[in-house]
């Protein structure tokens, strides 16, 4: 199986208010097309781990390799470009840009990437919105959407550049049952159909149960890893 992400010997400390080790020698690998769920109690370090994997947090010990590229020690601008092309994010609180329409929100990362013309980007964004069932809201301001709708739009945005890995920080944490179902199905589908890798931090046992593999964390360490 092709390895798409390799994290080795992650150590991370918080220095505020006291020095405190959040992650203790965490190492693991993720396969291409795998749907991975990271679970654990609050404060066990799972979100912290996800932000390290996302390349947004660069203050850690250890090495991170994605798609065969070592990302530890790279410049912020390099990491920005890398995120833009290879990573997609879904946050717990949807985090769309409120002044922009749904469609524009989805298009922005692709316009930044500049791989396709604006026309094509718009077309692709429509496709993504259709896939998540939000095409009819394309012209609405994103601040006018409901929470579940915004979360789906955030997923479309995460997918627009066909990233290798989609990361979610409790992507269903704020959603009701129906919306959780929808989001989960979308994740499931892109992992299976497009062979994109999903790494999601979650509290939801049902969500974890539906994934390919579950990593359980406690006190900054991986205590178990089992495939479903």
């Amino acid at each position, binding site marked *: 199986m092709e390895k798409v992400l390799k994290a080795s010997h992650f150590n991370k400390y918080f220095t505020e208010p006291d020095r405190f080790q959040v992650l203790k020698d965490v190492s693991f690998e993720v396969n291409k097309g795998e749907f991975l769920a990271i679970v654990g109690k609050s404060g066990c370090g799972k979100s912290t781990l996800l932000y390290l994997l996302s390349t947004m947090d660069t203050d850690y010990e250890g090495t991170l390799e994605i798609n065969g590229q070592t990302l530890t020690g790279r410049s912020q601008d390099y990491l920005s470009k890398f995120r833009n092309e290879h990573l997609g994010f879904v946050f717990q609180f949807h*985090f769309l840009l409120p002044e922009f329409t749904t469609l524009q929100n989805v298009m922005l990362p692709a316009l930044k990437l500049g791989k396709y013309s604006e026309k094509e980007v718009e077309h692709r964004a429509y496709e993504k919105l259709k896939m998540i069932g939000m095409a009819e809201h394309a012209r609405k301001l994103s601040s006018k959407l409901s929470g579940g709708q915004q979360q789906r739009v955030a997923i479309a945005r995460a997918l627009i550049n066909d990233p290798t890995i989609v990361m979610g920080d409790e992507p269903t944490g704020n959603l009701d049952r129906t919306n959780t179902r929808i989001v989960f199905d979308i994740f499931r589908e892109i992992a299976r159909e497009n062979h994109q890798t999903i790494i999601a931090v979650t509290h939801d046992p049902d969500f974890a149960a539906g994934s390919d593999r579950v990593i359980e964390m406690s006190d900054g360490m991986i205590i178990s890893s089992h495939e479903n």
Partner: protein
Amino acid sequence: MNLRITTQIARTHLMAKKRQTLVAMLGVTFGIAMFITMISFMQGVNQFLEDSALDASPHVRIYNEVNTQRPALIDQLNRSDSAFNVIYHQKPKEQLSRLKNGLLIARRIEQEPGVLGVSPQLSTQVFYNNGPIQISGTVAGVDIDRENRLYNLKSRLKSGTINALRSNPNGLIMGSVLARKLNVRAGDKVSVTTPTGGTMILRVVGTFSFGIGTVDNTKSYANLSTVQEILQKDASYVTDIHIKMFDPLLAIPLGKKLRAVYGYYTEDWATANSAILAGEKIRNVMTFVVSMTLLVVAGFGIYNIMNMNVINKIKDIAILKATGFEGKDIVLIFLLQAIFIGLLGGLMGLLIGFLLSYMLSITPFNAGDFLSIKTFPVIFDPKYYVMGILFGLITTVLAGYFPSRKASKVDPVSILRG
């Protein structure tokens, strides 16, 4: 491509918060409008004061200084180191203040390059008598056409004409304040008495006003030959030669040269008006300080607004960074907004500044006899408008750059984790 997407984001930000954008723009607008108004008005006043003083004085004046001090004859003849001479109350020698060959000198100076005009004249102290009233003043005997060329007398006449003086050998064009004090107007007669005792009755054919108290209060113009006649001098007797140049700055070297060539005293405008020029320097510094203060205050206002704008958008910045936008994209987004605000606000400021200074320039203002103005003096100089818009742009760009640079370094994790 980067520019395109950042422009689009910047535009959306500006359009989404129209009121905030407008307030930011008004901050720039008022700062620049006040700057334009202030500087146009203050420079207008400066220019007016300078012009009214300098217009009425020649660029170079050649005259013969009458000096009562002369070495005693005995000192010249009987000079020794071991003894000294004591002379009490030496009488001054009779000395004429005439310029020898003055008319010829004037004609030759006219040939010099850069000379606008030369007016040889005969100037003397006089008493003006109108009935029992006696007022002291001066009278200048001139060739009125040459004098007109130098000082543009035509435009300064309050009544009468220049031609009236030419056609009337005993005519007199009198300073307007002096005429009022004597209670005469064009057509009336006054008698003029010189220090040497000569008296003549002259007819006032016009009045003029330079807008300078010391001139309008005391001076009159008469024909050169008339004054020569009162003083009982010959037709080549002149005491002063006034010179105007095309470029006033060339007057200073010319004055030095003329002194060397003809041996008479020369005085250039800068020396003659050093008090006015010093005053002007001080006023220029004041103008500069006031304008700078205005601009700096406006600049801080703009900085404040831009800073708030960036802080309000900090979450959006984190999202943009998370989805792959680089620090320089973020800076560009806010810089573009700043440029838009600075440019539009600045242009509005120029317009309002122009309207304000225009209104000021048509506001009636009565300065009495001393200044010949009816409205406030205002200068409309494109230079100030260019300065204004440049300043508006530079401050807003700086005011937009610093907060956005800070924002571009923000750690998205700390914002997104909440």
